């Protein structure tokens, strides 16, 4: 039985492993090699000179990296604060309403994020849904909040909400009700229960949710382009420009590498601490 399991495990893993080796890990190696090539070459057979990394510091690309990381951090924090009570209610309080919320959130994921962000532009712009009707009813117009940093963070929070909500709910489902009840019976306050029981026991879900939101927001492009206009340049935007208008693949590759390294380290630390069998509910 054991050898059968071993053999079948390896064979069944092959298709997905092949896809990931050929179309995920191999491309990452190519990016790494491209990033050390001299400027503006399109092949890999040149003497490496690391000049693209020097450009990162000299030409202020670190600023867009800091903006992206900063906005990702703020939106992750806001997402955690927004989603925690809701995820808690979904697991412990709402009965059937949880299904309604789950379906509503999942369905929203199926609409291209472009269309949803564009919807916010139509809602928030001058002469948009909010301002247009406000002016119609009160006669007073107001400035549109679009094309500024807060609205980009708003867009990140909007788009990545499901990636925080579901892992948090999954984490909270691991907190035992009996344990909370026992703590309350022994005279613990709500705050104590939150700090000593809820947060530590839901930690795997919190780690996955925060990591996922942060990583995806740090590499986001559409939010800053569609909602933010040119208010700030996100690092993904710089990377895109280097490839398209700049025609400088090594620079784009170097910028990508820096982002990949930061995200990769965070993701590896997070993923290595999480027991997937436990989170996903292994029964046998």
């Amino acid at each position, binding site marked *: 039985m054991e050898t059968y399991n071993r053999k*079948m495990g390896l064979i069944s893993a092959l298709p997905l492993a092949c896809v990931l080796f050929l179309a995920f890990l191999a491309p990452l190696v190519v990016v790494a090699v491209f990033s050390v090539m001299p400027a503006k070459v399109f092949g890999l057979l040149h003497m490496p000179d690391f000049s693209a990394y020097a450009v990162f510091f000299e030409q202020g690309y670190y600023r867009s990296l800091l903006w992206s990381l900063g906005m990702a951090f703020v939106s992750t924090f806001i997402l955690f604060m927004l989603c925690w009570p809701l995820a808690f209610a979904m697991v412990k309080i709402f009965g059937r309403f949880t299904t309604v919320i789950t379906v509503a959130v999942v369905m929203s994921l199926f609409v291209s994020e472009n269309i949803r962000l564009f*919807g916010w532009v139509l809602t928030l712009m001058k002469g948009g*849904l909010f301002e247009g009707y406000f002016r119609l009813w009160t006669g007073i117009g107001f400035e549109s909040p679009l094309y500024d940093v807060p609205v980009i963070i708003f867009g990140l929070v909007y788009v990545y909400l499901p990636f925080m909500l579901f892992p948090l709910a999954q984490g909270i489902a691991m907190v035992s009700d009996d344990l909370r009840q026992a703590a309350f019976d022994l005279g613990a306050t709500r705050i104590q229960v939150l700090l000593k029981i809820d947060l530590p026991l839901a930690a795997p879900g919190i780690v996955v949710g925060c990591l996922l939101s942060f990583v995806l927001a740090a590499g986001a492009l559409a939010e800053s382009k*569609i909602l933010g206009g040119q208010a700030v340049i996100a690092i993904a935007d710089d990377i895109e420009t280097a490839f398209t208008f700049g025609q400088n693949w090594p620079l784009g590759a170097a910028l990508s590498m820096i982002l990949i390294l930061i995200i990769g380290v965070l993701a590896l630390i997070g993923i290595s601490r999480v027991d997937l069998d436990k989170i996903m509910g292994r029964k046998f």
Partner: protein
Amino acid sequence: MRTSRAMRICLYAYGCLLIVFLYLPLVSVAFASVSKARYLTFPIKKYSFKWYSVALESSTVSELFVTSLTIALVVTVFSLIIAFFGALAFARYDWRFRTWFQKLILLPIFFPQTVLGLALLMWFNSIGVIPSWKTAVVAHLVWIAPIATLIVAIRAYSFDPALEEAARDLGANTSTIFRTITLPLLMPGLISAGLFAFLLSWGNFPLSLFTTGADSTLPEWLYAKMVSGYSPLVPTLGVASIVASLTVIGATLTLIRIFRMTRE
């Protein structure tokens, strides 16, 4: 648990507010799609379906739909095959590199999609493949196949391996076991994974952006128009894309119902 009535009402209201928050932008898009004016302002003065008929007649629009649909269908088929086996390796069999495999699958999900698209563009370039809708299928698979695998794996976790072992003891070979036990048991997971694969591919933009070459998908076209200025066709095609997704969801649910009825 001790939750006061007021607290409960607040939480329910919060949940409802979230749903409004999620769908409000789509309401704006829907309104915009039936505005007659070339430059949109709210409140809308004249409603008309003019832009829908413009979209129906345009050959660009039908090309966009065909490309997106082809990619989504091919991605769905491949994802299902990969996810069926992947989920068994993930959840069912105990083998030496299982935990490694589980973590490898998560990596592409924890990865910015735009950067992944660019990495694939460089990779295709360096091995001499010209980007087209086919390369976009590969790009979508890198992200969607792991997600489909996780969805099927949740289902695979809840079935008892003893069922398979019993069949084997009674002399069934591997392919018979797959056909008569594993596949039917995983079916609900496979259906939702297929639905996810199709819809995520249909709506995906960041991966398509760099990997479709001369072909263009619907979300890509919408993005190009949004960034370069307003076109009255953007809300119209946005709504059309959502209607297409809803149709697929509806069709899948109906199929499931028919499937269940014929079994009873």
